């Protein structure tokens, strides 16, 4: 059995220069071209990696047939592409032929008008290699600054060894209409089995030995693995369409089931702000703490951008989505684990808001201080029924008022910024910081929310949600009182005892 770990990503390429046009009759020469370089471009939004190999093919004038096989791998056969990089006016790719019943081998037919070496690129997609970002943040005691380290971790579960490869990571969400792993496992159309697994035992034996031989040769001509790195490799970041490309400098060995973690970012003195939010969207009982920082270039004390190396600054590339673990450092350098959460992609210039979980230091008690029903009116309506007017049920209009008191206490030793968002079960007419609305005295149905006494800006988020902001000092209790009147209209007939329906 083939040991997957021993397999190379550079699959054996058998070059058969066929001097006559009879396809089956002549296999004159088998050579193994030198692999010049390998490049892996790994995506994090989908299970896809683009592998790019450069090789030098020796061609002769006439039709050259090159066989490429990839048994027992997760390569998408539809993605395999062959590019001639030089002498393009003298060397043409005629077609790509997939043999009968196989999805793990193909043959390129090349027409050449020269004899010699031609550089080519073989490109394909494979599955099983992914990468993720993760961050470790170390906040100072008063939570105003943070040291941030960003890592990228490459996972290889493809069963293959990629050594001495250039590794590039793509930040962004690409669109894939079919999974690469599915395409790799899809049987060949038509009759017969496909791939290595479906072959008879004796045929598999032959394939294995051929593959092994090719592998030995391949290894022999490979340059030795690069010397161990003396310091952490640099990550070069570059924008590309809607994505960002992180290129890890130098060459890496990406081994099967041995995740590799590299530092992508190490920034000190990131300005940090803690913010506390309470919203009815998540129950409206408890505050959640968020750390906010900006993905912007760091400023010095005079407000000018600092000249820092790329790896030690923010705002030069987006921050990929990933897990964030946050710690606080006390004066005696003891650490406290604050919390961990996943964060979304953060564009350059945007703000990161990382939830660090519920915070019990700030409490909210909400009381219904008063409630009442007023302006109850029963109106009788008529409607046409079978060409006659009939009395409709009496329908009731009434106004229901609630007075709320929210008591917010901060047990924090520092100033705190809090946001409270409330939901009302009707279209909101808001009397807030912008003054009394024109339709405040309207008779239409709705939730008439009076928050104008609150010392804050009031924001109407949508037609049901209202938000207010508090800047809280330590050791002070805040009491917010507001009133909402639900104007209920045409309610009934359950509120109508008579429930009459008669001809006029």
């Amino acid at each position, binding site marked *: 059995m083939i040991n997957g770990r021993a397999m190379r990503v550079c699959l054996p390429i058998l070059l058969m220069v066929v001097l006559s046009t009879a396809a089956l009759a002549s296999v004159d020469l088998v050579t193994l071209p030198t692999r010049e370089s390998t490049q892996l471009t790994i995506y994090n939004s989908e299970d896809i990696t683009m592998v790019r190999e450069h090789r030098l093919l020796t061609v002769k004038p006439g039709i050259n047939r090159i066989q490429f096989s990839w048994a027992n791998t997760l390569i998408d056969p539809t993605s395999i592409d062959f590019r001639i990089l030089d002498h393009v006016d003298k060397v043409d790719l005629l077609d790509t032929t997939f043999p009968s019943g196989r999805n793990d081998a193909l043959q390129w037919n090349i027409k050449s008008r020269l004899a010699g070496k031609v*550089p080519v690129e073989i490109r394909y997609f494979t599955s099983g290699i992914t990468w993720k970002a993760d961050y470790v943040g170390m906040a100072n005691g008063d939570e105003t600054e943070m040291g941030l380290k960003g890592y990228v971790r490459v996972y290889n579960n493809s069963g293959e060894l990629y050594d001495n490869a250039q590794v590039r990571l793509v930040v962004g969400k690409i669109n894939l209409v079919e999974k690469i792993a599915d395409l790799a496992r899809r049987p060949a159309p038509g009759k017969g089995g496909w791939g290595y697994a479906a072959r008879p035992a004796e045929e598999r034996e032959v394939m294995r030995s051929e593959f092994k031989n090719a592998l030995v040769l391949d290894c022999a001509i490979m340059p030795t693995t690069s010397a161990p790195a003396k310091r952490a490799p640099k990550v070069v970041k570059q924008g590309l369409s*809607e994505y960002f490309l992180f290129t890890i400098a130098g060459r890496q060995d990406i081994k099967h089931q041995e995740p590799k973690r590299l530092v992508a970012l190490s920034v000190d003195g990131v300005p940090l702000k803690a913010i506390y939010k309470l919203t009815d969207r998540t129950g409206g009982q408890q505050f959640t703490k968020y750390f906010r920082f900006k993905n912007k270039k760091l400023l010095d004390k005079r407000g000018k951008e600092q000249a820092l190396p790329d790896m030690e600054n923010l705002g030069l590339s987006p921050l990929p989505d990933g897990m964030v673990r946050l710690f606080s450092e006390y004066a005696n350098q003891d650490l406290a684990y604050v919390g961990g959460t996943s964060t979304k992609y953060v564009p350059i210039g945007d703000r990161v808001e990382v939830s660090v979980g519920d915070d019990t230091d700030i409490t909210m008690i909400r009381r219904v201080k008063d409630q009442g029903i007023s302006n109850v009116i029963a109106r009788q309506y008529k409607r046409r029924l079978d060409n006659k007017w009939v009395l409709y049920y009496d329908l009731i209009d009434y106004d229901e008022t609630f007075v709320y008191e929210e008591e917010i206490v901060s047990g924090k030793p520092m100033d705190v910024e809090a*946001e409270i968002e409330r939901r009302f079960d009707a279209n909101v007419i808001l009397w807030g910081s912008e003054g009394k609305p024109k339709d405040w005295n309207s008779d239409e149905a709705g939730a008439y929310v009076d928050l104008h006494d609150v010392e804050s*800006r009031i*924001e109407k988020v949508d*037609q049901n949600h209202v938000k207010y902001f508090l800047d809280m000092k330590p050791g002070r209790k805040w009491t917010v009182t507001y009133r909402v009147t639900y104007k209920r209209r*045409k309610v009934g007939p359950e509120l109508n005892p008579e429930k009459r329906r008669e001809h006029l």
Partner: protein
Amino acid sequence: MKRIVITGLVGVLVGMLSMPAQARIKLTTLPERETVRVDIKNGRFTLVEEERTVNLQQGRNQVDFSWANIGIDKDSIVFRVIKADGDVNVLNTNYPNNENALYWTVSAAKAGPAVIRISYLIGNMSASASYQGIVENDEKSLLLQTYMTVQNTSGEDFGRCTVQPGVGKTTVRYFKNGERKRMLASKFTAVPIQKRFVFDAAVDQKRTRMYYRLLNDKENNMGQFPLPRGKVRLFIKEPKSDDDSVRSQAFLGEDWGAYTPLFAKVDLYVGVAQDVKVERFTMQPKGGPRKVIDELTCPRILMNGERTVTHPRFRHQRTRFRYRLQNFKTANGEPIPVPLTIQEHVDGEWIIENVEMKEILGERNDVTEKVIPHEKMFLAKRIDVNNVEFEIALPPTTIKKKYDLYVTVLRKNRRHNVEPIVYKD
């Protein structure tokens, strides 16, 4: 053994025509196929045309045609004489019982070689299209290559043949049974790209999608044929770096390209534009809840000719959307504007009643809103009765500077079953 065999039995056949099928004499010398053309343009059937040279004797000749393990439509076989010295006519076609064979009785005015062409339909061959786009680094244009993959499971090994996969150029190949061949069918260079940032809450409520739009016409360096449906894989050229002598390409994304007639456009969803953020909220109409519905009245003419006024069962409905727009897109480290398209889906009779663009400055308690002129940065495009697009030239934004776009849609004359209720005095 899968084969198509053609034999020429020459000579006077007076008695032979009445012979039973088993007794037919087969010749061992077979005329070689000289040319074979395989045409897969029709999706269901594949047309095969082959030319052979048969030596005919003066008088009546029998030309045999038989096959095995290949699905030939017997009734589709056409025999034509392309070149002969003197008149050659097909007198009749004979179908031996229970055999995959037929023979033609051919009369020749003179003895000598004749080039004949036999055309027939077979099944089990298919062709599918796929595309590869190589996008320039500035995303202004691309090289679009059409590949046709032809699958031969017909049972027949075609030797040297001409394959017409449906689009693009014709290619000569050896094509064995069971093989698939992927061939470059066409190449369109410098095809202009329209890059679009599209937000459609019906498709994705949280993310803006990036599309490439291509036009299949001559002005845009295409327009040679309708593009068949197929998967489009897009790669982008990277800026040339020092340690990479050949310019690298990165995979951008893929999408199904729909069948695209000439002069039509094809939209390819490439990936998510995470730097362009849109949030959509449903707001109350200006003027409060009473403005959600406009009740209508219409004249009513009574039997006696008297004119009164009544409420028909139609009314206008008003919806107001707020879009919070943020653009963090950069190029070479500098913020840049983007063309954003917001798609909304409506129906029936409607108008865009009101548009308002606000600039939001500041955060939390220090927020100021300012209505700004929107005429130069906003355009509402009626696509059809069900679709409207808002095109916005969105300037760069920051954490402390955002835009809110308010659009009021008035959907007119909606039927409803609620009879207007009137108060009894």
